[in-house]
């Protein structure tokens, strides 16, 4: 800790703590405090419970490695207060020879997996964590890959005999009681686990009495890869985070970098970004609801919901040339101009999609089987969900009306009229209904924007340090060719700084915490994946239910492995 004068912030909370233990940092994109680790646990509790703070939501926790500093690591906490609509960033320096922090699970349950991830990636130990195992990498892995001195391509082989075999023991029982129980392994290659999740459940009859969730089967090292590529080259990697709605990831990343650069995309690009984000949201909800229904045995709806998706793919393909992983955004605008028939095609989609949605609603909303499978299943209260770090449609199904599009409007969301659907059951059925309602809201947003007409003008900024010059200029003008060469070879030069920028992804708040050191490559990119805290709750949701309930509740959470494990 550098020695600095005591804080002068007017908050009574800071006066209660030892002088110099909390120092507000100046010149940041949002309120930031540098916190001494001795007071972290007390501070966290006060931040959550004090009437003037009420930071009820731990959005994100990540490590950053600064090898040249005295205290090498830094743990960064992003907090949000839903009742007061306030955001706060805490930075806690951690020395390399004693990398220990107090665990905050007692304050925010969301800290559970975030702390395990920070241990896995940086080797920061969290004292008091009940299960500080590696989360994303495998059992035979050695070292902490996001440290700056770790070779990005250094792999470790996992032999069969080292594969982790958990044996979850119910509370209040010992290993000997487990003899009477049956333990089953579901996944990672199991149709109900959507590809890459693994749940080990201890059963009493058909009821799950204890369970353990294992992830990391799709940890593709996004954050390390982004540190070895230039700023533009990261865009294709962002596609593959939540691959059901790639475009929203593009927008979120590009907006973060634009924030660091201090530029804004031109109106035409912003208009297109808003429309295509909403189309992506519709696709994502279609996949989620379709596959949830398949998991419950309702195959017809899967085909009904996949058809609109296929048609939206057609639109995205016309814009970008790709169906799924579009990479259509660029820093400062879009990759290419919109196709001439963009508005006409979008209107055709607007007219055809409601039919499929209504059909599915009619098929399932009063269907006895679906109601029995979903109502009251995997229910969670709003308060508990916030403590677990939930955001997005799943949280709104538990009665908390939080939506980044409304609370912190970006792009054109402050100019359109839309509702944030909220339901109060907190179960699989309400998550399903919230998504169906959101599809309708998205259609309404798109219609309003199309009625407004496509803005004229360029689709990307004209700054030659950010956007490539037009091809004919690059071929015919010396200056343009040099700019082209510099941008391709060195990439965009982003000034040093940091930013946390968020959008409303299909699963909730999708945040990008980006640090630049001015070297032409990102110093650190941390994604705040919305489904990460949601899935960390899974064990709590399925304990006490049956195995078939667990299958349906996984579908309803819409966990996308690419985003969860990055």
């Amino acid at each position, binding site marked *: 800790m550098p020695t600095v004068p005591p804080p002068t912030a007017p908050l009574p909370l800071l006066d209660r703590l030892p002088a110099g233990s909390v120092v507000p940092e100046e010149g940041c994109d949002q309120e930031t405090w540098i916190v001494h680790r001795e007071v972290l646990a007390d501070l966290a509790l006060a931040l959550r419970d004090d009437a003037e703070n009420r930071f009820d939501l731990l959005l994100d926790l990540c490590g950053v490695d600064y090898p040249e500093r005295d205290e090498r690591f830094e743990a960064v906490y992003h907090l949000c207060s839903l009742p007061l609509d306030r955001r706060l960033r805490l930075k806690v320096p951690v020395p390399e020879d004693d990398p220990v922090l107090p665990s905050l699970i007692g304050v925010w349950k969301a800290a559970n997996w975030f702390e395990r991830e920070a241990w896995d990636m940086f080797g920061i130990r969290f004292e008091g964590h009940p299960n500080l195992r590696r989360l994303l990498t495998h059992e035979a892995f050695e070292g902490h890959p996001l440290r700056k001195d770790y070779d990005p391509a250094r792999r470790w082989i996992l032999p069969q005999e080292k594969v982790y075999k958990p044996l979850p023991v119910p509370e209040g029982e010992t290993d000997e009681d487990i003899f009477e129980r049956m333990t089953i392994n579901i996944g990672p290659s199991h149709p109900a686990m959507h590809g890459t999740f693994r749940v080990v459940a201890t059963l009493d009859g058909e009821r799950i009495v204890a369970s353990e969730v294992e992830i990391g089967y799709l940890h593709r*090292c996004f954050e390390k*890869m982004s540190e070895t590529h230039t700023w533009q080259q990261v865009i294709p990697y962002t596609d593959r985070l939540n691959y059901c709605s790639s475009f929203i990831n593009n927008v979120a990343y590009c907006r973060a970098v634009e924030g660091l650069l201090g530029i804004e995309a031109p109106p035409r690009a912003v208009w297109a970004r808003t429309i295509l984000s909403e189309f992506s949201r519709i696709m994502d909800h279609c996949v989620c609801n379709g596959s949830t229904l398949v998991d419950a045995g309702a195959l017809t709806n899967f085909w009904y919901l996949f058809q609109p998706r296929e048609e939206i793919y057609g639109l995205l393909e016309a814009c970008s040339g790709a169906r799924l992983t579009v990479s259509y955004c660029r820093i400062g605008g879009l990759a290419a101009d919109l196709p001439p028939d963009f508005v006409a095609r979008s209107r055709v989609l607007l007219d055809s999609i409601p039919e499929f949605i209504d059909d599915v609603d009619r098929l399932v909303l009063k269907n006895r089987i679906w109601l029995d499978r979903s109502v009251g299943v995997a229910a969670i209260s709003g308060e508990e969900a916030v403590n677990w770090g939930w955001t997005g449609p799943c949280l709104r199904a538990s009665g908390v009306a939080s939506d980044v599009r409304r609370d912190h409007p970006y792009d054109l969301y402050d100019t359109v009229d839309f509702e944030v659907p909220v339901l109060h059951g907190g179960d699989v059925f309400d998550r399903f209904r919230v998504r169906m309602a959101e599809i309708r809201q998205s259609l309404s947003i798109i219609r309003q924007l199309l009625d407004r007409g496509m803005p004229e003008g360029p689709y990307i900024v004209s700054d030659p340090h950010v956007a490539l010059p037009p091809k004919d200029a690059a071929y015919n003008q010396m200056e343009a060719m040099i700019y082209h060469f510099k941008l391709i070879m060195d990439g965009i030069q982003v000034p040093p700084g940091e930013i946390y920028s968020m959008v409303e992804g299909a699963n909730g708040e999708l945040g990008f915490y980006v640090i630049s050191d001015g070297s032409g490559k990102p110093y650190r990119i941390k994604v705040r994946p919305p489904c990460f805290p949601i899935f960390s709750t899974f064990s709590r949701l399925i304990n006490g239910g049956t195995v078939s309930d667990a299958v349906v509740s996984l579908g309803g959470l819409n966990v996308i492995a690419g985003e969860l494990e990055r």
Partner: protein
Amino acid sequence: MIGESWMTTTFGKLEEWAQKNSFWPLPFGTACCAIEFMSTVSSHYDVARFGYEVVRFSPRQSDVMIVAGTITDKMAPVMKRIYDQMPDPKWVISMGACACSGGFYRAYHVMQGIDEVIPVDVYVPGCPPSPEGLIYGILQLKEKIRRDRQKRRKGANADRAAADGSIAAA
């Protein structure tokens, strides 16, 4: 009078015809490619036209494994085990850049191509491949089976001829 007509063929040809026209794929889908695989089996592209629609999640019931998505080092033992559980004859389609070569993830936790641990019959490039691309890969696999059968028949004939020759010489 189709009920009374008859045809002659060899058992091997009949087996080949049946095999290549009714695959039971096991979708080992992990990531983005699995979404495109879902599109391929959905109504628009309808892979059932090629006899591929009986998707089985049990390795015991399937004969072609479609690896769709990135395989990490953590997933590798699982994939190997499932491949070992499939009964012979079996084939593998590697769908997408990640399964073929690791794709653009040259990274500490990603297998650089599934052929590090299991043999692959058809590589389908793309990130992800379009459904047309996957269907083309499927047709290539049919072609491969036909060629392999032919080669084996020719090989068997040559062996028999050689064996006959040796008897005659004796």
